[in-house]
């Protein structure tokens, strides 16, 4: 296929946490709200006068300092973030919002705070740790709303004078939804038998919407969507099977590239930093305040394994099944970043249930945060693809 016009530009945005759009937004006087976990409602971090950046640590090398502070048993994502913070890589931040999504991310954020990694010389800088629900129900919703008020809206208003009114939140949702709709529309091109976008390209574009000010991406997302409408697929597809990628945090598109280089098309992305459910538009009605509606939708759509009620446990499987069917996946690749406790359990259960109860071929892997030098992983994925391919040739599932 012909290269996408803006792919390199999107890729460049992912090379640094402090990318060119972050720099430009700050030059325009906007406050940068850094955050860590997908359970932070994004529209609340993108009110007029501020923009959100979900922290990543691209091109991570050594994690020696973070390993000293948190040992080698914490997941590499949390260590890579702390290392980058200690190095000064997030000095562009004006605050940090950190829900207690898991113990490791909590400790990562606490070390950032204790070591004063981002706040030096910034009078109004704040670190906020949030409680978020572990069950999706009315009680959880009340907690979520209160926590968002106390740990996002109030500090933003008090420290930076941000307008946190219902009208301001609704405006932020409109902008957020525009980005989500574009990402969804671009993602639709993965459904066809001859997709005109690769999983890698899609992940780069999606990732950029987490890593850069959203409003500044809209023009190029629209152009990319138009370009895809006219893009001609390769005559002979390089892909032999279609897989759904499911699991924990992936913020490096190189991992998707690695999967696709082995001949598997990543047709659907159900992981933290992926588009499902992170890029679901938020529907607002006029009969209830926007904050409550946002929290409700974040809570009920969440696929994070920290949600412990049985209904959520079951829904996580049916959700994957629905996506796999909708996007025509031949198999499922369950992954977790090494040392992640929540996904260690959910990957184990999920891979058994999707194989035994839903009938999908499943490959279950744990992987390092950085993708370089993972020959064994490549071999495992290749073997899985061959097994799925053989099943397909034999007409089985």
């Amino acid at each position, binding site marked *: 296929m012909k290269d996408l016009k803006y792919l390199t530009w999107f890729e460049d945005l992912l090379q640094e946490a402090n990318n060119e759009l972050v720099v430009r937004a700050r030059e325009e006087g906007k406050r940068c709200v850094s955050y860590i976990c997908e359970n932070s409602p994004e529209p609340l971090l993108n009110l007029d006068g501020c923009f959100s950046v979900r922290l990543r640590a691209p091109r991570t090398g050594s994690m020696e300092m973070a390993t000293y502070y948190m040992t080698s048993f914490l997941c590499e994502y949390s260590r890579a973030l702390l290392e980058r913070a200690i190095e000064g890589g997030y000095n562009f931040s004006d605050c940090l919002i950190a829900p207690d999504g*898991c*113990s*490791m991310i909590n400790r990562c954020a606490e070390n950032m705070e*204790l070591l004063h990694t981002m706040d030096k010389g910034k009078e109004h800088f704040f670190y906020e*740790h949030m409680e978020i629900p572990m069950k999706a129900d009315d009680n959880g919703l009340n907690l979520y709303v209160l926590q968002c008020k106390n740990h996002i809206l109030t500090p933003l208003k008090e420290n930076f004078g941000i307008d946190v009114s219902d009208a301001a939140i609704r405006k932020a949702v409109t902008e957020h939804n525009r980005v989500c709709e574009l990402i969804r529309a671009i993602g639709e091109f993965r459904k066809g038998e001859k997709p005109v976008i690769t999983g890698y390209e899609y992940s780069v574009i999606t990732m950029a919407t987490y890593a850069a000010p959203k409003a500044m991406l809209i023009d190029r997302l629209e152009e990319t969507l138009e370009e895809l409408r006219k893009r001609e697929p390769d005559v002979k597809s390089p892909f032999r099977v279609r897989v759904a990628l499911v699991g924990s945090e992936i913020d490096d598109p190189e991992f998707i590239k690695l999967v696709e280089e082995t001949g598997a098309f990543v047709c659907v992305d159900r992981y933290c930093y992926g588009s499902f459910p992170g890029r679901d538009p938020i529907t607002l009605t006029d009969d209830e305040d926007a904050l409550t509606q946002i929290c409700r939708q974040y809570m009920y759509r969440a696929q994070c394994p*920290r949600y412990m009620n049985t209904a959520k446990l079951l829904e996580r499987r049916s959700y994957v099944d629905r996506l796999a069917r909708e996007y025509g996946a031949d198999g499922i690749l369950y992954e977790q970043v090494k040392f992640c*406790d929540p996904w260690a359990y959910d*990957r*184990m259960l999920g891979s058994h249930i999707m194989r035994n109860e839903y009938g999908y071929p499943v490959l279950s892997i744990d992987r390092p945060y950085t993708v370089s030098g993972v020959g064994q992983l490549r071999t495992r994925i290749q073997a899985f693809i061959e097994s799925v391919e053989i099943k397909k040739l034999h007409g089985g599932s």
Partner: protein
Amino acid sequence: MKDENRIGTQNLGSLYTDGRVRSRREWRGVVDTAYDFSRWLHNWITMFRVVLVKPRNIKAMFRYRWMASYLAVPMMIDRHTQGLRNEHLRICHEEQDLIVEDVAKLLDKLFRGDRRIGNDKEFSSKVVLVDENEMQSIMMGFPTVVPLSREIASTYIPVLLNQRAALHYIDVAQEYGLAGDVCPMPEAEAGVSIDDDAPVLGCCAVQCNTTCDGSLMGNSVISKRLELEDGIPVFQLATPLRHREDDVQEYAAQEIRNAIAFIEEKTGEKWDWTHYFECAKRVNYATECRLNWLEMNRTDYPQVFGSNLALYTETNYMAISGRLKVFEDADRKISALAEKAFKKKRMAANEYRHRAIIWGVQSHYYMDFLVWLLNCWGIVPLTDMLSMVNTRMIADTDTPENREQAIYDIAWLTENMIMRNRTHGGYKVLLDELWEFVEEFNADMVILWEHMSCKALDGMHGMFEEKAREKGIHLVWVSHDLFDPRVISRQGVRDQINSYMRTVMNEEPVDPSLEILNDAESW
């Protein structure tokens, strides 16, 4: 400080053999040896009386792999009484023997209701299954409901008895696909569930997000078995992590209301306020006693301390929660013995050299390590993280206002479950409060258990080191893998102290016979 008047064995290492059991019983002088032997006999009688005389329980011995570990009960108590004399020996027996009786009754009840063994359906219909690490304060208003924890019986206690008891279940979970770096406690519990090796009974279950992410997620494996295969409905009690914050307390209280409503619905029983406030009084009495003991431990003559304090607090505070009067009686006896010993300035070992706070999550397969620490190096374990739990008095008189307050009290206790109150709630409760305790207890040393799979503790590793250096406190890391002695053996645990004491402190052991022990094969 030295105690020149102690009677009996000085070289405790001579009791060890290379096998599973010790070479002989410890000589403590005529009176204490006779007393100790009478308690040894008493515990065997308890086990026979409550468990072994019933044919159904014998059947359970052959059905459940973990049951064999219970034969090592008397030896576990011997490990914890090592070197003790006079009141200290009696305090230890008051605590441990009561725990033995309570666990024996737990086993008997589990098998009575178990669909595979006793299958007493009427009894089972009043049983509510609870987590191993769950505060049972939620059951304080249900006098006719029987809360039982299968995990306490199948994993928690067996590892205290036999260091290798959980290995099979850890392997089962890993063979099923669980990553090997998670905490082995929920891992083993998940393994029991995958292996279908737990009694099946009860009208419902209440799970709780207890100590960590692993514990929370291990519940999903168990609830899948319970709810989807055994048909036992499960309520997940989601307790806030940031438990010191005011803005989570209403959420916590509502979760308690919902849990009570669930239990009422499934058991057909009603919450009994009279019974609740009776239990609340006992909870307060237990808190008062614990605070008094800790107050003594701030002086030169600590009396209720070490692994006995930790084990007893875990049982009394968490699993009993004021529901049984017999624990109130034990509290009273222990307090009287402690007062008596304090007045006589009794010591629990030959020599006290260092005053230590024990922090972090203890090695479960080596729970008597604190006894060794005292006897081998004269390091006095003044208190430990597991014993530093709730200090608040809860409402204990029945008034309309207190009925409302009671829900918040139960929520508070549940949030402040053992271990959880330190591993969750932010760095202040784990890091900052440690140094406050060091000061309050006039400690010169911190023994910091580094349970290598405990991510919440590991995540503060560097900060612990920096603060210790800043404050000039000796911080000794002791790594272990909680349930799995294959990763770090008991001698491996001891060697970490031996090295520090010899190379950093330049000291010789109080009892050199304990420095190196071949107890790899021991229960």
